[in-house]
């Protein structure tokens, strides 16, 4: 039953833009899908206790490399985005390898990655002659209108379908990791690194694998965001605020379940939109305040997140029903 339900849901999501095209809700949906993909990318490593506060850095790299390659090198995003992924992956190796090799784990790992967020932000700001600094940056329009070569589209429907595809790809990767041996190794590592090593796991290598995967996916989210919005700034795709927002959304949605990050994205983005629409400029920054309060409440009372807790509740109900 759940299987047919899943296909029905997928069909509804794909079919939606052909029957409903109001621009504002479509825009919100596209944004939700892009961020859902970014949050899913974060949770691929986050669920194993590898809490990174540096993913804003990876997202920023993906976005800026794609945009800079286009504007300065006239390199199509079809090549620019993979370059961004590569750069994100490389940066992940440079930062994470020493951490894993010298057993910097838990809070200390989080702090190192937090520094990474800050550094990427500073680099973007400091090289303002090329990147526009904190004022932001715009990829040049290709001729006028849509182009597959430039990955620029004027229609929301196209962007919706692209974002949907990338989001589904993210879920697919999540499941691949979940079903693979990598999950066994990382669950073991998160509990007892020495014990895992004693069963033959090359701890550094396995941790690095998932980190590079997660970083590259996040860079792709950055590239996608850049192409869709046609405007990026350090505050929206990089920096500490973006990194923290990823952690917050995933914790709220559910870190251990595949759709948790998506639920987190729906909640955080709707919250920000509702505050913006109902209070306007008077509420600038309120969403961050509400995030902060909610985060504290969730970590204390609902560590599995909204979706995670609901699924656990349903499982417990079924277990009780089956036990009778």
């Amino acid at each position, binding site marked *: 039953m759940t299987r047919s339900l899943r296909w029905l849901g997928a069909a509804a999501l794909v079919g939606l833009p052909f029957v409903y095209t109001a621009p504002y809700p479509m825009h919100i949906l596209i944004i939700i899908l892009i961020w859902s993909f970014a949050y899913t990318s974060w949770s691929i490593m986050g669920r194993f206790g590898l809490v990174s506060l540096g993913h804003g850095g990876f997202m920023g790299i993906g976005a800026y490399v794609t945009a800079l390659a286009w504007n300065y090198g006239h390199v199509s995003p079809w090549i620019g985005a993979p370059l961004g992924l590569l750069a994100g992956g490389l940066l992940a190796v440079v930062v994470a390898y020493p951490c894993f090799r010298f057993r910097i784990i838990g809070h200390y790992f989080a702090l190192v990655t937090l520094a990474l967020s800050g550094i990427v932000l500073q680099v973007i700001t400091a090289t303002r002659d090329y990147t526009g600094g904190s004022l932001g940056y715009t990829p040049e329009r290709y001729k006028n209108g849509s182009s597959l070569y430039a990955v620029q589209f004027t229609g929301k429907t196209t962007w919706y379908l692209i974002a949907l595809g990338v989001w589904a790809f993210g879920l697919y990767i999540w499941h691949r990791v979940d079903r693979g041996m990598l999950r066994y190794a990382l669950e073991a590592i998160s509990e007892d690194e020495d*014990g895992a*090593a*004693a069963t033959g796991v090359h701890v550094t290598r396995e941790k690095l694998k998932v980190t590079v995967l997660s970083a590259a996916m996040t860079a792709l989210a950055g590239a996608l965001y850049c192409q869709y919005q046609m405007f990026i700034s350090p505050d929206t795709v990089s920096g500490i605020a973006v990194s923290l927002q990823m952690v917050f959304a995933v914790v709220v949605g559910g870190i251990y379940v595949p759709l948790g990050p998506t639920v987190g994205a729906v909640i955080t983005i709707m919250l920000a939109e509702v505050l913006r629409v109902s209070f306007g400029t008077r509420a600038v920054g309120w969403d961050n305040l509400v995030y902060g309060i909610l985060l504290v409440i969730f970590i204390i009372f609902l560590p599995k997140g909204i979706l995670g807790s609901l699924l656990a509740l349903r499982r417990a109900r079924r277990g009780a029903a089956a036990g009778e």
Partner: protein
Amino acid sequence: MLKIEGLTKRFGGFTAVNAVSFEVHKGEILGLIGPNGSGKSTIFNMVSGTLAPTGGSIRFAGREIAGQPPHRIINLGIGRTFQIPRPFRRLSLVENVVLAGYYGQGRRSRLKAFEAAERALGLVGLPTDRAASVEGLGAAALKKLELAKALATEPKLLLADESLSGLDEHEMDQAADLLRRICRDLDITIVWVEHIMGHLMRVVDRIIVLDHGEKIAEGQPAAVANDPRVIEVYLGTQAAAMRAVAGTGRA
């Protein structure tokens, strides 16, 4: 098979293992005994790669392995169990063993890992159904799980650390027989560390006795049990028990 020469480990000013040399022959069960703090587990940790030796050499199948990381040593064919069981509670019982079967055999194939896990679980007498959990396993079952994890890596040499501690008399007998069977039927050479001696004497081929990080005796169980230095170290009931067992001959 395993040749240890002048193996030394110092922690700061404290010498835990001092110039210990011995050899393990293919197909035997070698008992490594000694009171608490005599350096048995430290030797194990050095052979399995958890600790790097301060000095000396460890050669396995003609190859120097001292200072290599644990995952490489396992893939060369040295499995180990821990004195205190280390189950992974976020994995199911079978997954625990599959993990060892996969990564302990050089990540060859998932299928082989599942097969090895099923064999190992069957051999030690634990359930092989996928739903079985690690939660709620007792001391004896956790010891068995440790053994199954080590066996799933299909080792040539098994380092068994205090397999009996925390077990009752009946369970100890079973565990000792199991090690004998593993050695005979699977052709796995075993080094067995224990500080409870009675059950070990019955099963091992040779014994090495350690005290304060030094080797003080080596030989057949009966001869070792009558060695005056060993009796001195194991004053009291345990020495008496050793002689009693050695006197009645091995089963």
